[in-house]
């Protein structure tokens, strides 16, 4: 009889968030997902650096490792964003989101937990990228504050992209298909930027696009923050960092209301 009259439990939101965060992070350590992510980043670093060092070296000032590092960092956090999409799509398709909605959990808690997992994942991605960058010969040439700025910008990009990935996962019906929806544009936009070679190396008609697309703005900002041995890198003032931040704010302004809409529609 007590079951019927028992007081409704009021669980702590913080603890719920923590439990759900561990639920997101723990399996990546166990099922080898993290190991694949780290080796994938290494494969990409070697794949761009080894064949292209001589080909591109002629068009680039200073060391090619220094030139290439920002795009490697970006690709690595994009992979983290892809796994964010895969996770949120799997959660949705398996019905765990419905299950959570039937339980006394605030609407935002599962999202917050997934995003905490993504922040963790992006931080690991950043560390991996810097590690591989150091292996090929990348170094930070400006002061500590700019190095921190570099790391923060990469993290911010990763978190924004993971949020978009989570959103795409929420509306997709097929977790594997989601990965492909994201993989292709990210890879193609990654190479169609100033990350691998200067814009002048592209055919004339596509150069304006190459210069102004978001990857190039991110790469320019990161390159300025990392500096260069020859001093040819631009100084990181607001005219270099500004466009990158503007892109992030722009993506946020579109994605956040869209997410709110999706969450409300699915209730």
């Amino acid at each position, binding site marked *: 009889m007590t079951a019927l009259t028992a007081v409704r439990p009021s669980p702590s939101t913080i603890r719920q968030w923590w439990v759900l965060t561990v639920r997101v992070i723990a399996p990546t350590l166990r*099922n*080898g*997902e993290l190991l*694949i992510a780290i*080796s*994938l980043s290494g*494969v*990409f670093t*070697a*794949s*761009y650096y*080894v*064949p*292209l*060092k*001589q*080909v*591109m070296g002629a*068009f680039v000032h200073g060391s090619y490792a220094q030139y290439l590092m920002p795009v490697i960092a970006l690709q690595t956090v994009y992979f983290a964003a892809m796994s964010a999409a*895969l996770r949120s799509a799997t959660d949705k398709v398996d019905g765990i989101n419905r299950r959570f909605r039937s339980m006394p959990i605030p609407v935002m808690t599962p999202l917050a937990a997934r995003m905490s997992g993504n922040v963790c994942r992006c931080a690991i991605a950043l560390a991996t990228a810097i590690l591989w960058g150091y292996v090929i010969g990348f170094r930070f040439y400006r002061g500590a504050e700019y190095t921190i700025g570099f790391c923060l910008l990469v993290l911010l990009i990763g978190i924004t992209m993971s949020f978009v990935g989570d959103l795409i996962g929420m509306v997709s019906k*097929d*977790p*594997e*298909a989601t*990965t*492909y929806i994201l993989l*292709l544009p990210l890879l*193609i936009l990654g*190479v*169609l930027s100033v990350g*691998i*070679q200067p814009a002048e*190396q*592209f*055919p004339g008609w*596509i150069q304006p696009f190459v210069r102004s697309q978001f990857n190039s703005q991110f790469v320019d900002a990161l390159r300025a923050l990392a500096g260069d041995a020859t001093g040819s890198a631009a100084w990181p003032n607001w005219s270099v960092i500004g466009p990158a931040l503007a892109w992030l704010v722009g993506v946020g302004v579109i994605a956040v209301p869209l997410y709110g809409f999706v969450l409300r529609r699915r209730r």
Partner: protein
Amino acid sequence: MTSVADEAARPGRVPLYDHARPLIDQTRAESSPRLLVLHTWVQTQRLLIRWGHDVQTVIQALILPSTFLVSINLVFGKPVSAVSGHSALYGSVPMAALVGAVFGSTASGICLMREREEGLLARFWVLPVHRASGLLSRLSAEVVRILASAVLVMCTGLVLGLRFEQGIPAALAWLAVPVTFGVAFSFLVTTLSLYLVNTMLAESMGIVVALLFFFSTGFVPLAQYPGWIQPVVEHQPMSYAVEAMRGLSLGGPVLWPMIETLLWSACIAVACVAPVVIGYRKASMR
């Protein structure tokens, strides 16, 4: 519409008679060679129809390789042409056809996993269907898929400026290379899809394809690689396939790279035959 014919209900015979399809010979044993041909044909059609309805497979087989070619040509066309002395297309078009052939089979691998989980494979196992037709039809459907994607890549290449200087028979032989290579790799992908979990398949194939692509003579000429890795680049399967295809379009040595491509393909296929057959049997008897 099915009824059991008394005289046909002997062990080892197909006992079902389908009045809607009287042409099917119900007196033959399930394992007869003629039924193998028939069932392989039916299952090939089934797979092609199924893949045609799956957006991911269609994108991977038909749209992805050509998109890949166009973007590779945009990004690396100019610098690679400058170092190789001839148009980079003679390397990048074969690359796109081969990458499309290899990577496209991940979609069919995922399809196979889904059929295993849905219990479709087990269903075929208990029906009077020739048991070899499952795997054989997968191979023949792969041939059709790879051929379609290679023809599309070839047309894209022709639009971009690739020319077959060696004539039409060489162009047809050019198409045969990705088919051979892709079929050999589909043995590998099928093996992986029978033994790995879903998400690992695409990612591990992604790593394999990326390594094969970036460290091959189709990406940049051999001399551009550091000396210590040149032997690996020179002798890996994709480089041989690219060299054979380059010889068939631009001109140059064909025979030796072709032999090496066939050897590599045969080795990959032979190494995977036993695991594929055992894995497929296991997947069907779950």
